[in-house]
């Protein structure tokens, strides 16, 4: 079956081709307004950006979407979920931390015109368990409650690369982003007897310099929320059988050689993401989930990191579909077709030419990881289709995408104000207003 993916391109040359207008146009073209009935509670799921990340979506996109949903009678809220403690200084791992980071990144009720809600609650366990017999590896998933209980879900996704997932698209926005913290442990194979970090990590305590020589030993000793690392004078002990796969130690002690990660367990994240995305769609309801990919600022790594590298490729525009598999596949194909950005990781790795796969070569943490595995799994489990028809949407010239608060012409809008306080000082210099030279040589300063 072929799914439709609607697309508006990367160039903006008028208000009607702005990325905000494109997003709203595609919302309509893809039929998302048909999903929303008056009084429906509509979750807008996005990534609010880690502390000091700068590639995450600007809040204006969510605002415009919220306004659109309100115009249809819906009750929107913008939402994200607490994260695993995947770096030494996580900024979104509790509701309190996430709200602080989200607000710093501009995700306030004032900016959004609707509430920002942390969907899995204070500590990340406010969720709904979903059975998933059709899952490829996951047989159950834990969906953040505010998302699972929404009447309609719009996944507003920043399409980019991802170190472990390889692709950070719609599948991942829900496959990781809509899972509670509990659910993220599940998707990251926490506790799995074969693929979990505790089981699969190569551990070399003999390489540890210990308290005697390692200046970072305290950081290593304290990196685990369960206290499973015990640095000794000249080695380290790890209670690996208790490891939950929270990822906390990876940001601390991968560089010293004590830990080494095989590729295969990390790759299992890809089918798990597709499974968990399907669980999210099942929780909200088929036909009640719309997907929008903003393929802009396509950084190699995701918005979860505290920085944003030069985009791998130039902006590709906006894409929308009711099929997340087709949507991610369309964006992935466009990334491959594109020239790499000069000076980016794509150029460093030597994959900047058009027609060369860029995410699995320049975004994946390890060579040989697949940029297709999420998508292939998604098709295999019935979430969607890899076959798509790309429908180019022409911007509507009839619609108004200017300032909406007062749409009158300039004359009536400003006449009264200027009569009260004229910004031009007509009473100065015989009506010229300002003191300036009569004539100068512009050629001299060219």
């Amino acid at each position, binding site marked *: 079956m072929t799914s439709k993916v609607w697309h508006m391109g990367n160039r903006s040359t008028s208000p009607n081709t702005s990325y905000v207008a494109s997003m709203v146009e595609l919302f309509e073209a893809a039929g998302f307004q048909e999903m929303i009935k008056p009084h429906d509670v509509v979750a807008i799921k996005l990534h609010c950006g880690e502390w000091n990340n700068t590639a995450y979506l600007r809040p204006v996109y969510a605002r415009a979407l919220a306004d659109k949903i309100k115009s249809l009678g819906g009750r929107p809220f913008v939402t994200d979920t607490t994260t695993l403690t995947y770096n030494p200084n996580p900024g979104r791992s509790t509701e309190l931390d996430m709200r602080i980071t989200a607000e710093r990144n501009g995700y306030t009720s004032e900016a959004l015109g609707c509430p920002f809600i942390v969907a899995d609650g204070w500590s990340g366990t406010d969720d709904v368990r979903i059975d998933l017999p059709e899952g490829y590896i996951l047989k159950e998933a834990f969906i953040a409650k505010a998302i699972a209980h929404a009447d309609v879900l719009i996944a507003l996704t920043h399409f980019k690369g991802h170190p472990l997932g390889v692709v950070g698209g719609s599948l991942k926005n829900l496959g990781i982003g809509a899972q509670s913290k509990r659910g993220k442990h599940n998707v990251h194979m926490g506790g799995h007897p074969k693929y979990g970090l505790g089981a699969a990590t190569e551990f070399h305590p003999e390489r540890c310099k210990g308290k005697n020589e390692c200046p970072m030993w305290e950081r290593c000793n304290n990196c685990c929320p369960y206290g499973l690392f015990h640095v000794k004078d000249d080695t380290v002990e790890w209670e690996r059988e208790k490891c939950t796969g929270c990822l906390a130690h990876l940001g601390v002690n991968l560089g010293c050689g004590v830990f080494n990660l095989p590729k295969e367990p990390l790759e299992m994240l890809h089918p798990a993401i597709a499974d968990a995305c399907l669980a999210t769609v099942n929780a909200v309801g088929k036909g009640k989930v719309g997907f929008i990919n903003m393929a802009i600022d396509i950084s190699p790594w995701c918005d979860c990191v505290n920085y944003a590298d030069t985009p791998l490729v130039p902006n590709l525009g906006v894409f929308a579909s009711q099929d997340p598999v087709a949507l991610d596949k369309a964006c992935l194909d466009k990334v491959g077709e594109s020239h790499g950005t000069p000076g980016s*990781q794509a150029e460093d790795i030597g994959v900047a030419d058009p027609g060369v796969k860029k995410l699995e070569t320049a975004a994946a943490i390890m*060579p040989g990881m697949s940029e297709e595995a999420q998508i292939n799994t998604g098709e295999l489990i019935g979430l969607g289709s890899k076959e798509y028809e790309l429908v180019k949407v022409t911007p509507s010239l009839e619609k108004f995408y200017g300032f909406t608060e007062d749409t009158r012409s300039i004359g009536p809008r400003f006449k009264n104000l200027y009569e009260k306080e004229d910004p031009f000082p007509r009473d100065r210099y015989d009506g010229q207003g300002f003191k300036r030279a009569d004539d100068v040589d512009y050629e001299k300063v060219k």
Partner: protein
Amino acid sequence: MSQGLDNLDAILENSHRIAQAIEGLEGASLSDELQALQESAEQLEGLRDKFFMKTVAAVPATKGCLTGSEKVLKAMETFKDDQGEESLMTLKRGLKDLSENVGELLEKAQMAGTTLT
């Protein structure tokens, strides 16, 4: 084997050839450079088992060192042929650049601030 490890092998091979060439060199004293090169090679050998070497990030970092080592080998041949002052300066500059490249690689291999999500 990853491309980073392939590059590392090639760097170490080139370093070995450079060290041998320096030892057999007439008309120039490069003992400090030789010592620095041998220390670098030892440190690079220590990277072999680190996770970093399996990553995509290791590719450009090792490629920089590999290119640097190839430039030194070329400069070495030129100096052997002409024994000129300018060639010696090019060779010394190449060795200094290689040492800086290795320093950058060793720093990146610490993976400070790397976040896997």
